[in-house]
């Protein structure tokens, strides 16, 4: 039984990272119905920004107390801010002028942006895996034989905090209201005096900043990164967003955790399960979509005319 709970911890930690990335996918899709394939690479960029902050601060060994909190805050904020800016730039340079183009054009552009980011990162940090300094002390909490490491707690808590604040932001603030209005009907929102460009840029800023936060926790959790990191993580996070109901924020979160858990449990309980873990994840996706085509928490909306 301990093993089962241990796998729950593993699955939730992995799922937390997927969930943070999935939030960005789902926000962008919700507002402009674009699958932003460059999003996974913005996440990788977040790991590199974290690395750059740690290098600039000269962090090399384990930190404690105030310096630890200071470094965490600085790394999270810088990584989120820079990723947010990158996201806004991508929207401004690549997607905005295609907003009224046929759907396929922005989709292909997104794939192109993904390639550009990957290659820029390869030029910047080289094509091999890059280690991050291991500054985060990792005492494990022992709960009845299940060890919950401080890093796992960090990942899960950060993911939950981010989701709750995002949900509050969207439901309680004026900008959030503008986002919801734009998502519902862009033209009508514009007629009501909402600045569409600012609202969409804001969506990219927040979504990409969340990818930056995911990049930070993944850098701490795995202690390593490389330029191609975002490909698989992005694919899984996208799957998580679809599983939870794309466009739905708690859904993206739920989807991320479900995928992380399914992967961990499949690895544990199926003989030779590791190689089947992806097959099982995607089978779950197919099954859910058969019975709930809009995803776990998604609402079936009538097609917009």
């Amino acid at each position: 039984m301990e093993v089962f709970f241990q796998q729950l911890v593993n699955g939730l930690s992995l799922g937390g990272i997927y969930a943070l990335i999935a939030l960005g996918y789902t926000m962008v899709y919700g507002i402009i119905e674009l699958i932003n394939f460059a999003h996974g690479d913005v996440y990788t960029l977040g790991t590199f920004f974290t690395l750059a902050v740690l290098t600039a601060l000269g962090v090399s060994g384990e930190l404690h107390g105030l310096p630890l909190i200071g470094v965490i805050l600085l790394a999270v904020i810088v990584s989120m801010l820079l990723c947010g800016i990158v996201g806004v730039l991508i929207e401004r340079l690549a997607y905005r002028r295609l907003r009224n183009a046929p759907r396929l054009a922005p989709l292909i552009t997104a794939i192109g942006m993904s390639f550009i980011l990957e290659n820029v990162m390869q030029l910047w940090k080289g094509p091999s895996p890059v280690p991050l300094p291991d500054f985060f002390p990792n005492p494990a909490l022992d709960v009845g034989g299940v060890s919950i490491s401080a890093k796992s707690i960090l990942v899960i808590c950060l993911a939950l905090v981010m989701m709750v604040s995002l949900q509050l932001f969207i439901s309680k603030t004026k900008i959030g209201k503008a986002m919801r209005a734009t998502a519902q009907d862009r033209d009508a929102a514009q007629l009501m005096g909402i600045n569409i460009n600012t609202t969409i840029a804001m969506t990219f800023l927040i979504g990409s900043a969340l990818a930056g936060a995911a990049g930070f926790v993944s850098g701490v959790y795995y202690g390593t990164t490389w330029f191609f990191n975002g490909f698989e993580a992005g694919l899984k996070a996208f799957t998580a967003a679809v599983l939870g109901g794309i466009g739905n924020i708690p859904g993206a979160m739920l989807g991320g955790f479900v995928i992380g858990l399914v992967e961990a449990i499949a690895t544990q309980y199926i003989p030779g399960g590791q190689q089947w873990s992806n097959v099982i994840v995607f089978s779950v996706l197919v099954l859910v979509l058969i019975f709930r085509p809009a995803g776990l928490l998604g609402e079936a909306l009538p097609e917009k005319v």
Partner: protein
Amino acid sequence: MHARNALVRLSAALVLGALAASTTPLSLGTPASAQGAQVIKIGIDLPVSGGDAAQGIPTQNGALLAISDANARHAFGPFKLEADPLDDAVAGAHDPAQGAQNVKTFVSDSSVLAMFGPFNSNVAKAEIPISNDAGLAMIAASTTNPGLTKGEDAKKLRISHPDVNTFFRVCTTDDRQGSVGASFARKFGYKKVFIVDDNETYGKGLADVFEADFKKDGGTVLGHEHLTKGQTDFKALLTKAEGLGPDLIFFGGTTVTGGGLLRKQMGDSGLKGVTYFGGDGISDATFITTAGAMATNTYYTVAAPNPAKLPSAQAFITAYKKAYNTDIGAYSANAYAAAMIEIAAIEKALKSNGGKMPTRAEVLKNIAATKNFETPIGKIGFDANGDTTAGILSLYKITNGKAEFIDQVTEGGS
């Protein structure tokens, strides 16, 4: 209007191109065909970018050194020997489709008489049918999967000419590497192993042999799992392994297919103190940088002798250091030996052809007939399958970020 403009531009470009083509031979003063005939090329196919570069570059350097040595002593008379190096890594890792494409490039260039490479077994699997079809001899320094040369698997690769072998290697095979690894592990007292491989030709092949031999030597195999391509999270897998209580984790695969990250993440699990064992796929500097502090307490085998221990290799080691200003890699000396064999075969073919450009078939025949050929790694000959008759395996251990030579085993007759 637009279309017409484009048409005008296109035709102008065509005219210019035609002019350029017709003036080039004139300005050089020699016919293009004679110009081409002065060069003999050896194609080199290795992964030289991405995580694999840590293995690919030192291997490529070994072959390049042999080629520049041959040019220095004017081995080919009027012909100049050139290397044609291509990269088979795509998105940071070796790629069979890219390797196959590279071999097609070599085949279409009539001045390429032989090729060196590839580095990885799954790439070789994609390349052998093409080289077999074209009759282009290839020698590899490090591809250890037995199915490339032996038995039914090898026959299936020789599609166009089932009775002709074009693939040779100067390293021994994984049926040897895996069983030597297993017997070392048992000798050191490890009893319970958990095996992980990357599900590639090389990694799975090696892990399967290790599993069979570890059992045969009286050990227990607790489990054998295969990774998925691109996987970066191994925590669930390690929890599963931990629950079984292994005293050894064996990894079949390379550093970039998961070998480095798996070892690193063992540090965050209950398997922190458990020994790690692998094959030549993790015998590179990237493994140590990827695994970080966890690289320590890792054993790996290499399908090559330790050149530092061989009197015949000392001159090569010095020359390599002088040429590239670094120490040799695990397969540099093997690469040098493989290129030497190809150069000697071309030289012999030139002589018997009266100094005229030899054919690929003549070069292939000479390579296949190699017996007792002196190289820095000892005397090499090829058996009917194209495998070396002198297979030496060595064992290394990483302690505090440095790999140290432990022991070596010489193939006894088989």
